[in-house]
């Protein structure tokens, strides 16, 4: 019996004890992202001031990968400028496609533990749900 499941402590911790899964009173940007095939569904809320993400949170339902990915994303982008967040999203999405450098991977900090998803085609959509939602949202900022 193999036992190298990909659900390590960092991932399960973000899933069971998310830091950013809550309502955000004073958000000025809000967008729902869904994965029809999985039923994953998150609502991403950001508070953006002067082109900088000053706060963020998400709500919703989904598998551990979609939830933990959104939580780690918010860890990473809160406090960053729109451009920095877009840059990170770009790296993350390329990581999931399997094409980034080690240096870039480091920029993703904890979120880099999801790199194995590149070998799990059925879960790609879960991992990128939060990031795609943020990307789309930032186009409006």
């Amino acid at each position: 019996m193999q036992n190298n499941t990909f659900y390590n402590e960092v991932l399960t911790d973000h899933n069971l004890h998310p830091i950013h899964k809550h309502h955000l009173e004073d958000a000025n940007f809000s967008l729902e992202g869904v994965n029809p095939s999985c039923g994953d569904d998150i609502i991403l809320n950001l508070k953006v001031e002067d082109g900088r993400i000053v706060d963020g949170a998400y709500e919703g339902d989904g598998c551990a990968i979609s939830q933990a990915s959104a939580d780690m994303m918010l860890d990473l982008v809160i406090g960053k400028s729109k451009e920095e967040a877009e840059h990170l999203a770009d790296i993350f999405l390329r990581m999931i496609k399997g094409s980034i450098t080690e240096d870039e991977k480091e920029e993703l900090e904890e979120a880099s533990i999801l790199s194995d998803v590149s070998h799990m085609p059925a879960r790609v959509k879960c991992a990128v749900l939060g990031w795609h939602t943020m990307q789309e949202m930032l186009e409006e900022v």
Partner: protein
Amino acid sequence: MTEKDQLIRKEFPILKNRNVIYLDNAATSQKPPCVIEAADQYYRMYNANPLRGLYALSVDATDAYENARKTVADFIGAARPEEIVFTRNASESLNLIAYSYARTFLKEGDEIICTIAEHHSNMLPWQQAAKVTGAKLTYLYCEKDGTLTPQMLEDIITERTKLVAVTQISNVFGRLNDIKGFAKVAHDHGAVLVADGAQSVPHVPVDVQDLDCDFLAFSGHKMFAPMGIGALYAKYDLLEKMPPFLYGGEMIEYVTTEGATYAEVPHKFEAGTVNVGGAVGLAEAIRFMQRFGWDLITKREEELTVYAMEKMKQYPYVHVIGSEDPKEHHGIITFKLDGVHPHDIAAIFDAHGIAVRAGHHCAQPLMKYLGTLSTTRASLAFYNNKEDIDAFVETLMQIRKEMGYAE
């Protein structure tokens, strides 16, 4: 493994080749070498375009195809081979009924009834037929444990009801519905009864004449046959009066620039070059099942279901959907595990070499009715054994821990 287990397992080398515990049989079954080889043998010795050929190969291909039709007809107790139309899969069979029968014979003011427990393939075609004809689609709600009785149909059926669609075995609950009873109620009110046999024909003996259903749809790939071949059973007089569905070669009598007259039943429903290889594979799959016999198949599947559900009952975090009685599951065990999303459950099973299915099981309206978005399903075939169940349950009880719960 018992000796019997080993004997059966020898027929499914993929399980060993891939070292997989395969518990997704409701999605598709594995194929024994005899089925693969029957199709091969056809291509190596008899392949030709059948039906119109005037040479030996084509006559052989025609025989192979029509004998396969007879095997299928006998297997489900049809009155005559012509009552079997070969299709691609159960979904196409159901669409054929919806396009050819429902869209022709139903009209505004009429009613279609289907149950809330149907697979999308036995629901969307009726939604569409209702939309196009102006008929009304009414849902028959099962109880939360999947119970559906003819009396429940009796309570909602009206004189306007023209078609009732019910699955014989639900791919979520695994419960065997009383098609004979439903057919009686439908007929008493002048409606036809469409039975979805996708999950029943592979797992329980089916006799269409005894059930008295008007239509029965099923797929080969869920019963050890190749993909790409399925069947529609329909009573002969219905097929006679239904217009064609697909138009083209092989389904006509005369064609002019103005229109056409159509070939005899069942050819009028089989446009274009038919799938002889697939039909031959399906016939061999049926003979394969018959060599083991229903006694063995149903007994093994039931024993394993009982064994699995008894074990699962011990574990408080797991909740099986449907009847508490394993004998009402026919190898289909759909469940929730507290605090873990089905997709993560399936992924962890996969990491342990176990194939189960997670999601809505093509039954979103049923999921919604049951108050969930998705569930996990283990589904058995007679080639599964106790070791498979032990591994399945052992892994199941580990998942919450792997996901960070204390227990």
